[in-house]
């Protein structure tokens, strides 16, 4: 086996040193009757070229990856500068462990610290952690944290929050005390309409903005409503690029901001690995889940970084920990960090603006086609819902099969009561030509 740096002879010598003769004897503490006494029924070992060929053959069946696409809904196609993937492939980063030995992990620790800072800056919050698995689990953890902070158990969440996020949060909370109350969105504006569910039992009001339909919520108003009943205001962001243009959740009064960082230069990769974002206020820091990196000094006064406040975590607190998370999404946080640093202030602003502009252009063009209109009136960022006079499934199939374009996501996948609608996402990677082609395909031209 070419990955094992010992020859058969070396292994025999080592066996002799430990007083054995054959490898099987290494396992004598395993009762014979639970030892496997046959070969596993898996493929024969393949040569490197054969593995590549097998993988390429499978990849080639993913024809969606080759088509112009207007899919968003929590996973976005953005351009990632080449240096991102090159730098995360430095083995100093990708072949190292969680930085538990700070003296030889300052590279990792420093980027985590930068990541935490950047997430604070973009979300407008005071403290952010070193990453969660993804946006959905980050939201689930926000529910749990809100319960801990407020000692209340009612979570009010709008149905315009990403449906898969809500499913995950339901799974996480099903055995706890949480009571989840879903509140609807306004059919006209696409925004939250009715906050009557908020009361003095409410631990958190949870909204997504831009929401699943691409509509931007009036966060400041919602924050006030939550705070009025003593609840935390939790804002979910699935499209992190929007932070370059939209008023930050922190500036609007959010207490916890959770989200998905995939937009920051991470490949869509069939849904993962991505990176969950989690930010909050300083005063809640000891209730946060996940790892935190902080400044520390050595005895000569040199600045360095360490993982800190770990008394919140499972390896110290065990069943009383703020979360069970251990392995997180470190390397993806690095990729996101490099993305944010490379784009910088100007780049994050410009890319956000381009997304908004292109989506606005696309929406205008689509709205001008007979039989199509834009579903909600609230301002949008880079996604919007299109209502069609025909079933969305049929419309999108036609566009896909006849024109080779993935035109968006049928809302009925998650909202069976909305069969004629689909969600369109337009990013800086969609050229005008692609948009125009989508428009003419929808128009049946």
């Amino acid at each position, binding site marked *: 086996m070419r*990955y*094992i740096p*010992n020859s058969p002879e*070396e292994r025999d010598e080592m066996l002799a*040193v*430990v007083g054995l003769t054959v490898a099987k004897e290494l396992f004598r*503490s395993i009762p014979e009757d639970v030892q*496997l006494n046959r070969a*596993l029924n*898996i*493929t024969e070992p393949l040569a*490197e070229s054969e*593995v590549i060929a097998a*993988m390429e053959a*499978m990849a080639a069946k*993913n024809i969606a*990856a080759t*088509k112009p696409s207007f899919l968003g809904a929590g*996973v976005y196609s953005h351009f990632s500068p080449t*240096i991102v993937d090159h730098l*995360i492939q430095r*083995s100093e*980063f*990708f072949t*190292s*462990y*969680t930085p538990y030995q700070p*003296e*030889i992990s*300052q*590279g*990792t620790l420093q980027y985590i610290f930068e990541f935490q*800072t950047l997430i604070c800056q973009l979300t407008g919050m*005071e403290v952010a952690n070193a990453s969660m*698995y993804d946006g*959905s689990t980050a939201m689930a953890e926000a529910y749990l944290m809100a319960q801990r902070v407020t000692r209340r158990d009612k979570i009010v969440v709008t149905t315009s929050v990403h449906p898969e996020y809500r499913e995950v949060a339901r799974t*996480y909370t099903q055995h706890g005390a949480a009571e989840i109350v879903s509140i609807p969105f306004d059919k006209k504006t696409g925004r939250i309409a009715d906050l009557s569910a908020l009361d003095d039992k409410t631990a958190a009001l949870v909204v997504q903005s831009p929401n699943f339909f691409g509509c931007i919520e009036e966060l400041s108003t919602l924050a006030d409503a939550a705070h009025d009943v003593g609840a935390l205001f939790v804002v979910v962001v699935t499209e992190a690029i929007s932070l*370059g243009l*939209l*008023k930050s959740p922190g500036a609007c009064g959010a207490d916890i901001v959770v989200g998905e960082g995939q937009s920051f230069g991470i490949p869509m*990769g*069939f*849904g993962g*690995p991505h990176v969950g974002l989690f930010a909050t206020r300083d005063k809640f*820091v000891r209730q946060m889940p996940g790892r935190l990196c902080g400044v520390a000094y*050595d*005895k000569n006064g*040199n600045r360095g970084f360490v993982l*800190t406040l770990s008394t919140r975590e*499972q390896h110290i607190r*065990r069943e009383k920990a703020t979360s069970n*998370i251990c392995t997180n999404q470190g*390397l993806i946080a690095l990729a996101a960090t490099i993305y944010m640093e490379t784009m910088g*202030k100007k780049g*994050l602003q410009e890319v956000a*603006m381009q997304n908004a502009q292109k989506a*606005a252009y696309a929406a205008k063009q689509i709205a001008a086609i007979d039989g199509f209109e834009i579903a909600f009136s609230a301002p949008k960022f880079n996604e919007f819902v299109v209502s069609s006079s025909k079933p969305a499934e049929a419309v999108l199939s036609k566009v896909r099969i006849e024109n080779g374009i*993935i035109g968006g996501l049928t809302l009925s996948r998650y909202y069976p009561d909305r069969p004629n609608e689909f969600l369109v996402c337009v990013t*800086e990677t969609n050229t005008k030509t692609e*948009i125009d082609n989508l428009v003419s395909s929808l128009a049946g031209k």
Partner: protein
Amino acid sequence: MSIKKVTQHPTQNEALIFERSKTGRVGYRLPKLDVQPTSIDELLPAELRRDDDLNGVPEVSEVDVVRHITRISTWNYSIDLGMYPLGSCTMKYNSRLNEKVARIGGFAGLHPLAPEEETQGALELIYRLQEDLCEITGLPGISLQPAAGAQGEMTGVMLIRAFLDQRDGEESKNRRVMLIPDSAHGTNPASAAMSGFTVKTIRSTAEGLTDMQHLQEVCDEGGVAGLMLTNPNTVGIFETNIREICATIHAAGGLVYMDGANMNALVGVARPGDMGVDVIHLNLHKTFSTPHGGGGPGCGPCLCSADLAQFLPIPKVEKKGDEYTLNYDYPGSIGRVKAFHGNFGMMVRALSYIYTHGFDGLKEATEAAVLNARYVSHELEDTYDKPFHGDCMHEAIFSHKNQSKKGVVTLDIAKRLIDYGFHPMTVYFPLVVEGAMLIEPTESVGRSDLDAFIEAMRDIDREAQDDPQLVIDAPHSTRIGRLDEATAARKPVLRWREDMEILSKTA
């Protein structure tokens, strides 16, 4: 030779990116906007727009970023630099082939919500990996959705809960006790708690095994939902009584969860499914070599017996004829644990690992991993205190007992190893051994490097006896010395701010 130190070495003093930022530098270029622009106010009312000009976000060039990241990278140790014997972490070689195939455009550029008929390759890959992992563990049910070991645990414990709820109905609420050995990893109790269980601790014996008598006693107390057992356990010893353990729990009406973090000792040699285990999680980022990435991402598949399979997270990836499909139709499912399909990129790497090894290679790797640990255990037993005398599997455990008399404790030994060019072992875990040093060489270290490590450990012992302060003050060769973690936690500084001290307190 004494070194004439220079303080301004740029690589050793690379600042935070925020401290490098200069107004007006840029590191990006986007294509020109190619559509007719909408006026900004029409696009978005002013009150919804940011008005802080992204204050504080750095402005740097591409070159700045490349140098910044490259410089700080040199402050890290890594598997590619040498032995990384973190016990319980399985820091094995992360093959470049796996990295390459994970980046194939048809995988990396695929949207998870694209139509099933256009993502058949990705579903096929998931399916194939599922099949192989089921064969490897001997358990027929599987979900690849969990993002890491801890999430796999939570999923598995929830399966147990769902099974008990279905089996026992209302009665189930009287079974809320999860048994966990004192040697278990912290994620075990934390995951159990997240699934609504209370934890009871099972003692270990002097041999480092589950105390069967204590187990029986606790079972007799009733209310047992299950046991979470790591096997080989966290001291690196195979639980020889595994069948009896499972039988005891089953007899008590509970189920057995196996923490599969240590599967690198078993793959191709023995299967949890054959031992009576009901649920297990794997860490693809350990046993199946997907890179740890400085903390993640991972992938923590959850596997289970046929009885529990109906409760697995949805959607499940299944094969119908020649087609691969997502099946949501499991009404008993515990639900989704992660958006989309889990950490797919890790699955590509793991399957590439399995393809590269085949059965022979997997078994060879297991043998090599166990042999390496056994060798270290044998070669250091005269120097370091060995708390347990049973055969170690893939990791060797020692304590600082022989050195602590001189005031040299595990942490010091660990730090001194750094000067010798090695990453320290896992320290102070598991908690059952005072001053534990848990050494897992994995199969990715050759005899010559192992010998160098052993020699270093012996040297450190000699130093501890002759010149303990040398060890206590270690490391001596790093850019930065031991950091004051207590103060860091007492006055946490968790983000950069403009008024922060730069580089050193005195600077």
